[in-house]
């Protein structure tokens, strides 16, 4: 029992240490991305100084996709009876929340890019509309998670909602190829393996992708921990309430 407890405790310490390393790497990586992106990389021929927004905008969208992918996968595994585990539900919720933050930042940085290049803060372009819909869908998912109910019921309905919401993710990615769009094609074209930037610009963009992905891992892990604490708090609250009611009933007898 004691050795089991020590193993759990040492495992927790190791995971905390790993999480700290990820956090520090993310912080250093983001700092370097900002430094390279703002002061070291050259201006672009066509976009001039505005090209510097490139080092943050695509990584925001990329991280949002990863976050929703993780929420989708965890929800799928949760719904599968053989792998059903509340930890997967927590992971889905944590990942989706971080995804919403990054989708909000994708929309914000896209809008900041759109004003000087297209002349408008917002337009009902297919990509922008699909991204805004993605944001709203996952906000709805997070709201659904807060609707009271039995823990398992909440987890099951949230998992179904996560699967439904994920349908919009490929629509967002392929919308620039499927419809005529104001938005340029993806900077990193996964299907054709093309990269539309080169040299220090490409390295800075790559560093941006890696750093913000690490930031996603760190934020999701912290959000997961918070969800685990909240679950524990709710469980303890429930057992305390049951004990109190029992004590009340015994005092009447």
């Amino acid at each position, binding site marked *: 029992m004691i050795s089991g407890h020590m193993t759990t405790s040492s495992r927790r310490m190791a995971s905390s240490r790993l999480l700290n390393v990820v956090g520090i790497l993310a912080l250093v990586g983001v700092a370097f991305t900002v430094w390279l992106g703002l002061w070291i990389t050259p201006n672009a021929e066509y976009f*001039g100084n505005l090209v510097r927004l490139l080092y943050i905008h695509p990584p925001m969208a990329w991280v949002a996709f990863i976050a929703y992918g993780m929420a989708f996968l965890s929800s799928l595994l949760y719904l599968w009876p053989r792998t059903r585990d509340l930890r997967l539900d927590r992971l889905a919720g944590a990942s989706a929340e971080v995804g919403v933050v990054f989708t909000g930042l994708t929309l914000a940085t896209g809008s900041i890019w759109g004003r000087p290049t297209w002349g408008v803060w917002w337009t009902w372009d297919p990509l922008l509309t699909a991204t805004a819909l993605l944001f709203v869908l996952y906000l709805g998912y997070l709201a659904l998670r807060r609707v009271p109910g039995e823990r398992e019921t909440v987890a099951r309905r949230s998992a179904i909602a996560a699967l439904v919401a994920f349908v919009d993710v490929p629509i967002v990615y392929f919308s620039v190829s499927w419809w005529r769009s104001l938005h340029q094609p993806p900077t990193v074209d996964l299907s054709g393996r093309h990269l539309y930037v080169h040299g220090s610009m490409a390295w800075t963009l790559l560093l941006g992708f890696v750093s913000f992905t690490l930031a996603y891992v760190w934020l999701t892990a912290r959000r997961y921990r918070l969800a685990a604490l909240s679950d524990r708090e709710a469980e303890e609250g429930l057992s305390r309430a049951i004990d109190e009611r029992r004590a009340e009933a015994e005092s009447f007898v």
Partner: protein
Amino acid sequence: MSPYVEAGYLVVLVSLSSYAISLFARERAARRRLRPGNRSEDSGMKSE
């Protein structure tokens, strides 16, 4: 430097830092509530 570029970086850095700080604060508050000594006085607090 274009003000749009500065605004873009500022929005990203401020938002992510604020979110990270809020997670820290909420985690600390949850841990404090779960500490055995705080149970009775915090019993009315709503869980997250």
